[in-house]
């Protein structure tokens, strides 16, 4: 591999599309690896897309990074993301906002926007590391026209991932093809004693005939052109011998509020540690009480969306509200898990659009309220709440912009969604 050329390309793409927070000048390795900036890389600036970590150089590599380095990965850079993953469009960024390589007036999707844009635009990189809490791999994969693979929760160690919502966070892959996504995933899976929620993959038996479920709730409130396009692909699959069934996931409508309550509750506690005491942004603390000092650092270090999410997340877990929001949301999560479990008794995979719209223009995003932004996650939050594996794969264009369809599998049935994904890829 010509490291010089890869480095040059990265710089050029960054100039065009704002892909990297950090480009690694000392880049070297068998293949280039771009890593979302909320994953710790030893001695390489890791900010999680936030000003509050503008000078943070981790002392250790995340387990996934350690594994990839052993396979020859050279870190080309750390990619732009919404601050701490707080966003759907990669527009809540502290440093720069990535532009969609298909149309620079449009967003990349979020929050793993930089990683998706890099894969979409690079000649050299075949896969990059992203991370999803509520759809942060599927969304930018769909908007940028690349493959996004979000594994079952726990399949990849989270050690070294700067937490957004620990019970939802998953490290995953953005790739040029299903094959490449799958081979990258193979490099990073496995139980890790440093992450108690990580598991050893149970070996599934390869299904001979895969039945596809079409969840009706995932086609309402979606751009009709996208629905048509996705159904075209489903028809092709049906023609090629896949059985297709209509399915209902009745609790889908509660997924967005439940997701935001759980994710923000956890996020508001995770962000408490950033207070200018041991790392990150700091000021002179002379003549200040610690409360005053913490407030000063946090006021300056966090962006508006981070502050909004801390406030919301704190509110829903306070005495008097905890029962009606936080605990209720956990119950809803159980119902959503049950929905999927019931569905997977009838079918092997589910197919739905990845996102309800094509990548919006920055000018359109500006007009959206927070609530409107949150509801664009309608198709991705439920699978993330359940922690099932998700594969987003390009399936044609609308308005010259790529669209994606997502293939959802049962727990640890990555092989099922990969098999269907490879078939879809053949249709071009």
């Amino acid at each position, binding site marked *: 591999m010509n490291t010089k050329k890869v480095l040059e390309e990265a710089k050029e793409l960054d100039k065009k599309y704002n892909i990297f927070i950090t480009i690694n000048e000392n880049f070297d390795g068998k293949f280039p690896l771009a890593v979302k900036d909320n994953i710790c890389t030893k001695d390489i600036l890791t900010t999680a897309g936030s000003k509050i970590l503008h000078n943070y150089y*981790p002392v250790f590599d995340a387990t996934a990074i350690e594994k990839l380095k052993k396979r020859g990965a050279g870190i080309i850079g750390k990619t732009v993301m919404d601050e701490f993953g707080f966003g759907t469009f990669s527009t809540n960024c502290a440093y720069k906002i990535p532009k969609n390589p298909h149309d620079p007036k449009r967003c990349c999707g979020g929050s793993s926007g930089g990683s998706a844009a890099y894969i979409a635009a690079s000649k050299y990189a075949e896969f990059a590391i992203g991370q999803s809490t509520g759809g942060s791999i599927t969304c930018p994969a769909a908007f940028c026209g690349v493959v996004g693979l979000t594994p079952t929760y726990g399949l990849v160690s989270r*050690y070294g991932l700067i937490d957004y919502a620990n019970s939802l966070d998953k490290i995953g892959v953005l790739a040029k093809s299903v094959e490449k996504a799958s081979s990258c995933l193979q490099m990073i899976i496995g139980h890790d*004693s440093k992450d108690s929620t990580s598991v050893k993959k149970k070996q599934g038996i390869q299904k001979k005939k895969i039945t596809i479920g079409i969840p009706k709730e995932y086609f309402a409130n979606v751009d009709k052109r996208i629905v048509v396009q996705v159904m075209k692909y489903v028809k092709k699959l049906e023609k090629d011998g896949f059985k297709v069934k209509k399915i209902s996931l009745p609790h889908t409508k509660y997924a967005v509020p439940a997701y935001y309550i759980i994710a923000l509750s956890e996020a508001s506690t995770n962000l*408490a540690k950033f207070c200018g*005491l041991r790392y990150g942004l700091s000021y002179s603390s002379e003549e200040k009480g610690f*409360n005053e000092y913490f407030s000063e650092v946090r006021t300056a270090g966090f962006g508006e969306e981070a502050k909004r999410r801390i406030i919301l997340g704190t509110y829903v877990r306070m005495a008097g509200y905890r029962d009606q929001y*936080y605990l209720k949301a956990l119950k809803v999560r159980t119902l959503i898990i049950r929905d999927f479990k019931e569905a997977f008794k009838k079918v092997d995979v589910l197919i739905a659009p990845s996102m309800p719209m094509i990548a919006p223009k920055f000018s359109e995003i500006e007009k959206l309220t927070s609530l409107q932004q949150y509801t664009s996650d309608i198709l991705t939050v439920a699978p993330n709440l359940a922690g099932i594996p998700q594969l987003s794969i390009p399936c044609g264009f609308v308005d010259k912009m790529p669209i994606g369809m997502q293939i959802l599998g049962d727990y640890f049935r990555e092989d099922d969604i990969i098999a269907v994904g490879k078939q879809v890829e053949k249709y071009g």
Partner: protein
Amino acid sequence: MVKNIKIGLETHVQLNTNTKLFCSCSMKNISEAPENTRCCPICLGMPGSKPSLNKAVLDLAIKIGLALDCKISPETFFSRKTYLYPDMSKNFQITQYEIPIAKKGKLEITDRNGKRKEINIERINIEEDPAKLHHVDGDISSAKYTLINYNRSGIPLCEIVTSPDLSTPKEARIFLKKLSSILEYLKVFIPGELSMKSDVNVSIEGGERIEVKNVTGIIEVEKVIDCEIFRQGCLLDDKKKIERETRAWLPESKTIVLLRKKESEEDYGYIFEPDLTKIEVSKEWIQKIQKTLPELAHQKIERYQKQYGISQELAFSMASDLDIAIFYEKCIIKQDPKFAATWIDLLKKTLYYNDLSIKETKLTTEIFLKLLDLVKSEKVTKSGAEMILRDIIHSPEKFEDIIKNYSIIDNAEQIVSDVISEESKAVSEYISGNQKALQFLMGQVIKKSNRRIDAITAKSMLEKKLK
């Protein structure tokens, strides 16, 4: 007059484990380790680090739960308690909230008069210790700056919460002493090396509950409660309201200060700790721990009385300190249990007087048993043996030399004869029937023998000579 005092204790005990609660930092001699040399990304709360549970802590907590007659939860988990404070590396503490590892236990206390009382244990939690703050040149409000030592961050703590069943400061002291002894017996806690702190809740009739946080030491707890009862009583006397508030004990200045009032009570916004999984505690696991439970102090007290026929007071004395109990049980393999208990009680008092523990003296049971043999075979007198005790706790290796000064001597006859010839006046008074004169002569014999002749021997020898 203060009425209806209710006292509840929340006692935090640092647990004796090889490594910390959520990381592999060594706990060995951690109190003596130089500042910030026992910490890693996990105890420092570095971004990306995650806790992983040290299972040994669960074993110890279950052990404590069983020793305190608690129900062990079949399933338990951890929660995040959020509050921003500079001693907390993550600004939240991983603790237990909804379902603690153990609950609904009891501990019976007995005062010196033998009165028994059952104190209910509400719950036992596992949680992490925060870092230690060192306020330089002052206390928390006046210090110029504060240093943080993260060695303590992540040390496993067991929180033992009682119901408000204690009604006097003395009861609280007796309770904590007993609790401390049990924890020491279980080898889950090392007094002196690991710390034990209590949050003390005190209420009196007509007032609300006052919490005093962070009281170190058993004597201090007793003092704090005494002060609180007095302070609250004065408020009532002045017709003032006692409102719910949290106070803090400052060990540097030995004062209690107001921390916060009711209206500014913390809201911790508990959520489940998402980095740790639920823990299922199987019956087999509990049984396995049950088998490792040693005989506890109160069990020993009962057994000593029943099996060896010693008094309750002596049994209490033998069992209340584990090292003494071990010493006693070793001695009675070769010695009469009643006789040994009496002398070990005496040894304890001598040690106490010299501010020594049995561990600190190098006195072995072998040497101690030699001494008891000398007393039994009347080669030393009782008072002589007491003198020997005082010497050998300092230098047991000189035992052979020390006993030479106190053992009964061959020239006893000579001493008695000398006294008779020297004290002719008393002798004649005795012969004419004055018993008091015999007492005087006995005293002279004991004195002249350097306590190597005891009163009984002196008496019988004098009587024989003057018959």
